[in-house]
């Protein structure tokens, strides 16, 4: 794998990524390649570094060493090897869309404006153009009927679906999902997973941290298992869930009720 080659063609290319919080190494020499159209799921017990890895991809966390390229462009560090100026960083960040565990909608804006805010004020789209796009995306996630509502009137599942539309509105190269259903009541998990599943069927490139094993098995092209900041196993979902190579993963799957094939 020559560096120039892979970073140019991959949607996300992570090389030799390491990060510590104080004395704790949360990521150790992580290598990950996400091809365009691929769905990669990151699995691991809590504290294994999976959210940190995801948050490094759009530079919400800054790694200590290593590099990340989004569609061939390095994030966070410019050609001279210095930290990127904020405007440049924002531009690369816009190639990623992120969905958070806690939704993080902006409460002072209604549903429609949550989705149009970045296209208008970051990409400079006209209000009409942004609203057309937003309406289409809200229809896709089944939230068009709530376009004039404010976030505080929505259920968790509805909020998360709006948050997905908000991230899609920037037409990102890759969508990042940070435990998108962990904060939801069990009966609301399904509606969010259904939306994400639709996106994978449409060919969106996605990196997802999740505890939903059956879902991971159903939508992933690649499953990565993180343990103490180290990728200890990576495989296609069938292999990963049926014949894991390491004892650690076998034990983890036993504790998580290994799903039967969806």
């Amino acid at each position, binding site marked *: 794998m020559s560096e120039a080659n892979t970073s140019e063609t991959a949607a996300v290319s992570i090389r030799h990524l390491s990060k510590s919080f104080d004395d704790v190494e949360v990521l150790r020499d992580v290598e990950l390649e996400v091809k365009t159209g691929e769905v990669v799921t990151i699995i691991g017990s809590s504290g294994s570094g999976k959210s940190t890895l995801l948050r490094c991809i*759009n530079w*919400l966390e800054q790694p200590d060493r290593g590099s990340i390229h989004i569609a061939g462009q390095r994030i966070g560090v410019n050609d001279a090897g210095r930290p990127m100026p*904020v*405007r440049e960083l*924002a*531009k690369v*960040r*816009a190639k*990623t*869309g*992120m969905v*958070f565990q*806690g939704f*993080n*909608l*902006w*409460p*002072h804006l209604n549903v429609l404006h949550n989705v149009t*805010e*970045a296209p208008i*004020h*970051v*990409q400079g789209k006209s209000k009409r153009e942004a609203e057309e796009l937003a309406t289409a995306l809200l229809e896709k996630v089944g939230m068009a009927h709530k376009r004039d509502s*404010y*976030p*505080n009137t929505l259920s968790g599942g509805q909020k998360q679906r709006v*948050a997905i539309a*908000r*991230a899609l*509105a*920037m037409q990102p190269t890759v969508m990042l999902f940070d435990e998108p259903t962990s904060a939801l009541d069990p009966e609301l998990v399904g509606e969010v997973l259904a939306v994400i599943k639709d996106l994978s069927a449409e060919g969106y490139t996605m990196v997802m941290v999740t505890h939903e094993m059956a879902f991971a098995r159903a939508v992933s092209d690649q499953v990565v298992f993180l343990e103490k900041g180290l990728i200890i196993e990576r495989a296609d979902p069938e292999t990963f869930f049926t014949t894991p190579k390491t004892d650690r993963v076998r034990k983890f799957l036993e504790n998580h009720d290994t799903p039967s094939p969806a």
Partner: protein
Amino acid sequence: MNASAWQMLLEGAWTTVWISAVSIAIGVVAGLVIALIRLARIPIIDQLLVLYISVARATPLVTLALFIFLSAPDLGLDLNRSVAGILALSLNTTAFNAEIWRSAFRNFSREQSEAAMATGMTPWITFRRIMLPQMVITSLPGLVNEMSFLIKGSPAIAVIGIVDLTRVTNRISAVTYEPLPPILVAGALYMAIIGCLVWLQRLAERRANRLAM
């Protein structure tokens, strides 16, 4: 009270309103600017701002107004009374407003800013579009409180010869020997002015409900 007394009262009320309004406008904006600068934690400058805030908060308005008005000639400044009065009120209210804005910054949800940055917003756009609109709503009760303190404290500027709504009642009763009527009218006018602010605050509270998620 005769017609000229009424006219004097209204002129006094106008003086109070415009001097207070200008000072409030300066104080709200300058307070925000100071809070923004303090976020950057620039060495020396930060300490200077802290010193200013503690001095301004601890100094009585009368003292501040007198000091500014009397020291201006020594500094080679030719301040008229109104400017000196506005300066005193602004210096005082800015210090309080800076603290109100600063706590709004501190309490702002980190998650919301992250969501903004994640969509590609620069820190400036994030501040302008996501943080400030919410900070205005959450800070308004505190700011309006400070505004009404300023208006109620504004008679202090009479000490440098400004004829405001309170001072004018003295002038009227000096002629009519009836102090009660003008002071009652002045009281009613103060209540009307503060009433406008309270109405503004109620408007903000209705919007604030939306932010409680």
